[in-house]
Structures are given as C-alpha cells and as structure tokens.
C-alpha cells in the first residue's frame, strides 16, 4: 500500500513540472519579442520629425511608400514559417481553440441556411397562392368567353336575318305605294274621252274600236321594251287615242320609227 502511494506522487509532480516548463517557455518568447520591440522603438525615436506641405507631399510620400513596400517585400521573402513547439499541452490548447472556432462557424452557417430555407418556403407558399388566383381568373374568363361567343353567334344570325327581312318588306311596300300613286295620277289627269264633250262622243260612234287608257298604253310600251329589246317598236292601233299618242311624241316619252310612221317605241331611259 505505501509503495502504491509513492508511485502516484512522482507522476503528479512530473505533470506539474511539465506545465510549468511550457508556460515559462512561452513567457520567455514573449519577453524576447518585447525586447526586440523596445530596441526598434529606441531606433525610431532617434529619427527626426518631418511634416508635409501640399507642394512636396506626393513626391515625399511616394518615395517613403516605395521604401516601406520594398522593406516589407524583403521581410516576406526572408520570413520562415515558425514551427509550433511540439508540446502536448500547447497542441491540445490550440486544437481546442480551433475546434471551438469551427463549431461557431458551422453554427452560423447552419442558422443562415435554415433562415434561407424558411424564406424559400414562404416564397413557395406565396407563389402557390398567386398561381391559384391566376387559375381562378383564367376559369372565370373562359366561362365569360364561351357565353359571349354564344350570344354573339345567336345575335349576329338573328339580327342579320331580321334586318334583311325588314328591308325587303319595306322595299315591297314602297314599290306598291309608288305604283298606286302613279296610277292615281294618270287617272286624275289623263282620263278617257268617253266622259268628255259630245264631239268626242261622235268620234267614238264613228269608230268601232274601244279606247284604252294612257296607263295601259304606257304599260304596253314598257313591256315591249323589256320583253323584245331588239325590236321595241309597237304598231299604232285604233284603240290608241290620237291626242295621247301626240302627247307622248311631243314630250319625248315615245319615239317614232324612222321609216314607218305607224310604229312607236319608248325612250330608253334605263340606258
């Protein structure tokens, strides 16, 4: 039992000594560096003070910068990588610090990526909602479009048909109205000679034929004109009352045949 205790004690003492040695080494290194800095400081304090004016500032500064950069370059070239003392405690401490730093960095990256994911999810929800709304709008517009198409088709067909029918009916009525008016005009102003003076009665008694109205004469001329266009002449008959024939010829409504005075035709008003 006493031997075991003695064995444990020397090991503990050895560990403590090792730690103390490491710290002393580090302190010595720091003190050496500090002495170097003090030496440099003493040298620098001997250099005189120099101020700049606007005139020569650039030139002086450029020269100084060139010197400094040259010196730095020399230092970098001369520099050799310092080897960390291969001491277990030092390496352990450095390793701990490195892992601690790595852990912090990874935690930061994790939180960043998580927040980015949340933002992407929110964006996705928003886009999905927007898509749904657009789909609803599209459906509504499609329904409206089909309704409008049906109405347009029906409206167009029925409207055109109604319009044409109305026009045709109007034209027919107008035609009938014109014919009636013209007929009435002729009856009023160009009556048959039967109801006139006794002289005309004598003429009627003399002739055997029965006279026809001016309306009928014009009708015969018009029908001849359109039914037989290559020979539109009508032979003068006894049923034509001579004053009416003279009337038509005088006013240019009818023309006499150039060779046969017993034939007349209607003026070609339609050509």
């Amino acid at each position: 039992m006493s031997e075991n205790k003695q064995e444990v004690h020397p090991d503990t003492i050895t560990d403590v000594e090792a730690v103390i040695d490491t710290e002393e080494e580090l302190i010595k290194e720091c003190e050496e560096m500090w002495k170097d800095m003090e030496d440099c400081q003493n040298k620098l304090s001997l250099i005189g003070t120099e101020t700049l004016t606007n005139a020569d500032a650039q030139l002086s500064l450029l020269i100084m910068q060139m010197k400094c950069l040259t010196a730095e370059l020399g230092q970098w070239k001369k520099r050799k990588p310092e080897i960390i003392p291969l001491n277990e405690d030092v390496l352990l401490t450095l390793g701990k610090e490195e892992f601690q730093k790595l852990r912090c960095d990874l935690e930061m990256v994790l939180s960043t990526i998580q927040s980015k994911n949340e933002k992407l999810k929110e964006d996705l929800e928003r886009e999905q909602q927007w898509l749904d709304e657009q789909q609803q709008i599209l459906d509504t517009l499609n329904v409206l479009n089909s309704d409008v198409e049906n109405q347009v088709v029906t409206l167009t067909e029925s409207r055109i048909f109604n319009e044409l029918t109305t026009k045709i009916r109007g034209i027919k009525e107008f035609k009938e109205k014109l014919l009636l008016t013209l007929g009435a005009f002729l009856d009023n102003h160009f009556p048959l000679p039967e109801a006139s003076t006794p002289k005309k009665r004598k003429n009627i008694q003399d002739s055997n034929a029965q006279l026809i109205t001016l309306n009928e004469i014009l009708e015969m001329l018009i029908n001849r004109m359109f039914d037989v266009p290559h020979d539109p002449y009508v032979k003068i008959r006894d049923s034509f009352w001579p004053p009416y024939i003279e009337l038509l010829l005088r006013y240019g409504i009818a023309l006499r045949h150039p060779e046969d005075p017993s034939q007349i035709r209607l003026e070609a008003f339609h050509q």
Partner: protein
Amino acid sequence: MSVLRSMDKLPDLNRATVLLVSTEDALLQQLAESMLKDDCASELRVHLANSLPLPSNVNRPRIDLIVFVINLHSKYSLQKVEEFLQHVDSSFFLGKVCFLVTGAGQESHCSVHQNTVIKLAHTYRSPLLLCDLQVESFRAAMARRLVRILQICAGHVPGVSALNLMSLLRSPENPPSKEL
C-alpha cells in the same frame, strides 16, 4: 505644442487607439459612440480633437489611426483640416491616415466640391471614405469599417499591414493630364 508622431511610444498590450479630428464636434461624438458600440476583440480607445496640434503637456497613448472628418457643407471644415495636416508627421501617411467625408448626399447644401476633397486625399496618398454621418444606419456601418481598419493599423491582424490595406483601398491613378 508638438507634431504628432506615429511610432513615438511602445504599443500597449491588446489596445488600439484612434484619433478623430474635425471642427464638427457633434458629428465626432456620434461617430465615437457608434465605434464604441461595435464588438472589438481589442480594447478600443477613441480620442476626439477639434484642432491640431495637440497640447504637449498631456500624457497620451500611441495613436494608431487618424481620421480627418470633412463636412462638405462647410468650407471652414475643409480649410481647418488642410491646416491640421501640417502638424502630422509624414510617417503617419504610410497607411495610418484616412479622410472621412460627410454631407455628399445633399448636393444642394454643398459649398465644397467633391473633386476638391478627392484631390486632397490623392495628394496625401490616403484613402477617402464617403458617408452620411447624419443617418444612424450609415454611421453604424462606417463605424464598423473604421474599427476594422483600426485593428489592422494597430497590428492586431496577422499578415496584413496598414500600408498594404491602404494600397488596396486607393482608387486607380487619375491620368496625369487631367490632374495638370
């Protein structure tokens, strides 16, 4: 009265000191508060000055960075900064001086043309930072940036020196014909 020197004292352990110089005390105060709010591994010290040279009887720490703040709305501000530059040692201009210009956002109020401060920064081979210190968010961003620059100037970032940083920050050289 003494000229500011960049290497006149030994550096304090893990400490960074910045000197903000301007005639605009209110802007400096706000900027200093923003810088102190920022998280910084080093112990941060912010000193304010409304004129140079500084009184010599006061014991002050080693200054790692000088920021000259120029307000474009005030010609007086620019004139004073130009005077202050005469009282700074030339070694400071090896990456430990920068110019911070404010007020460029409201051109109708500018009495100093932007090209003037650009030429000034170019003459002294130092970077020019533009920021509207009246806006809190802009001021906070600029404070963060200045703290980062300060850490590099104080030597707390391994592998990067102040002169390297300023070389990277500077814009491409203007054609000499334009300057002449």
